[in-house]
């Protein structure tokens, strides 16, 4: 019974947070609400006994991705006012399309399939089942091929990110320590022969 209340609490929190992400004006607040949404999702997953995924969601998304996201949002300091221009102008069309979509999708979802008859009730697994071990087993046996492809995608992402951001040539403002160390006196000091001059006055 108590678990049901916990579930409803986090589910409600998730929906509210997700709604706030798209409605609040301040992008920093939106990012923070997204963190809250991730957090409540991970709580729901924890109740579904997917503890590994729940922890990964917190560690990877909240810990790394969202922090990076916040940095970018704060550093770019985007002025949202020009982006909101035309909002009122396109609102009627948007509402009509959204309503049509909602009706079409709603008629599919509410009518038949999701009345519960097709849905399985989650049964608790034995306590000695290790979630991360089971996932690892699946990843390296049944899903080995997709797993390897995902690795290749990450490699492409790294190559692309580096080749897009690496600047060489004049715009690069880095020091070259080996060149600095191996500098000789002759490179820096130029001896100039001059005739001695008479002191004036």
């Amino acid at each position, binding site marked *: 019974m108590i678990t049901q209340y916990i579930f409803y609490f986090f589910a409600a929190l998730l929906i509210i947070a997700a709604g706030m992400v798209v409605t609040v004006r301040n992008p920093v607040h939106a990012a923070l609400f997204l963190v809250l949404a991730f957090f409540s999702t991970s709580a729901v997953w924890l109740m579904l006994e997917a503890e590994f995924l729940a922890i990964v969601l917190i560690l990877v998304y909240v810990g790394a991705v969202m922090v990076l996201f916040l940095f970018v949002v704060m550093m770019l300091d985007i002025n949202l006012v020009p982006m909101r221009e035309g909002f009122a102008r396109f609102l009627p069309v948007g509402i009509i399309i959204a309503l049509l979509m909602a009706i079409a*999708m709603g008629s*599919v979802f509410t*009518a*038949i*399939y999701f009345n519960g008859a*097709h849905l399985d009730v989650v049964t608790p697994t034995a306590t000695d089942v290790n979630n991360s071990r089971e996932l690892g087993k699946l990843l390296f*046996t*049944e*899903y*080995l*091929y*997709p797993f390897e*492809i*995902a690795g*290749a*995608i990450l*490699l*492409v*992402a790294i*190559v*692309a990110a580096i*080749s*897009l951001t690496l600047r060489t040539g004049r715009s690069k403002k880095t020091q070259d320590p080996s060149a600095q160390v191996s500098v000789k006196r002759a490179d820096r000091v130029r001896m100039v022969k001059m005739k001695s001059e008479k002191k004036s006055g």
Partner: protein
Amino acid sequence: MLPQIQLVIPELVLLCLASIALVLDTYSTSKNKVLTFRFVQISLLIVIALIFVVSPDTQEYAFNNHFISDPMSVVLKLVICIISLVVFFYSYEYLKEHENVKGEYFVLGLFAVLGMMIMSSAASLLTIYLGLELLSLSLYSMIAMHKDSLTASEAAMKYFVLGALASGMLLYGISMLYGVTGVLDLQGISSFANAGVDADMNIMLVFGLVFIVVGIAFKLGAVPFHMWVPDIYEGSPTAVTLFISTAPKIAAFAMTIRLLSDGLQDLLSDWQGMLIILSLLSMAVGNIIAISQTNIKRMLAYSTIAHVGFFLLGIISGTASGYAGSMFYIIVYAIMSMGSFGMIIFLGKKGYEADQLDDFKGLAKRSPWYAFIMLILMFSMAGIPPLIGFWAKWFVIKEVVAMGYVWLAAVAVVFSVIGAFYYLRIIKLMYFDEPDEMLAIKASRELRLVLSVNGMVILILGFIPGALMALCLSALS
């Protein structure tokens, strides 16, 4: 021991070679990156040879039904590798001329080829999606790599955002299918749909199908999901446009067949109607808007949209011979598109893209032979016999008529006639107009040779369409 790992050897070797190329590139000190480029060319040749050696003639699965090797995947992989080989050559000539050769360009190109090969022999929803992402990510960064060009950056951004949206649509459809059937492999989905499902289940399958069709249409660039095509074709450097418009189209064909035929053939009556709308709109919008274009890259983009409309006709027929017709069409289109963009590269020079229609003015006086090649390309695109483009249209229209959609065939022919106008206009510009200035064409001997061969292939295939068609038929039987 891993089951059937020998089937995946071409992909594995390509992955290794691409990684080696990445390392090798740091040792390639010359400005033109000759070492990287040659290595990439050799890699593709090795992969082509491996596909010949290891591929079985029968249908075989590997990696728990995530991977399939069948005649279709073998033919498609071969075509993708051969076309990429030529495309990389054209791209290299372009980048060399514009003094913008980067080793990563070819490395990412190899990864894109890997993505296309994965898509060609995908047997589960997961593999299709991952292959598509591998291909798309490589393409986005290949465009964005031209950092100094504002239009290229804009094109990359648009492509990235719209591509992500399309992937989202596709994923949503995939999640629906998975939710209903409970399996990820296409074989399982097919047998689930085949076993006869009640109305509740069926409506959920169709619901997922809608999103999958939208995703496919986005990737193919069919109307009304075509908005990205003209901007990206025009904005990207010609070298990348050339790549986007050729081999990935073949991979998109593979994705269409895998999802709609291998997975959801039982929902034929549902997706047929959707594809008819997409096809009609694509033929209409593509052919009519192309008429008013003055930029040839943009014109070819609308021509692509129109060709996608024709290509879908074969899929609509829903039979193996119809799919073979579509396969024939998309391969022929890739060869023609390769030649056309090759001509733009051929006419361009450092700091100047020959992407306006006026650049083709009086080409017959400047260079009669290459004007003739362009004439072949344009006649073939317009579908004038006896060139190969005619046979491509002929096969798909024949299939549609055989399925009883005579009105659809009639509409297709009408739009094909409308489309002939803008192809013929280029020929008029080349042969009947005076050139603005009699500049000598500066292109390397290799580029001249490859372009000539490309044109001749279209001419010769036009006389022996049966051979390629037999190959396509055997691939899909």
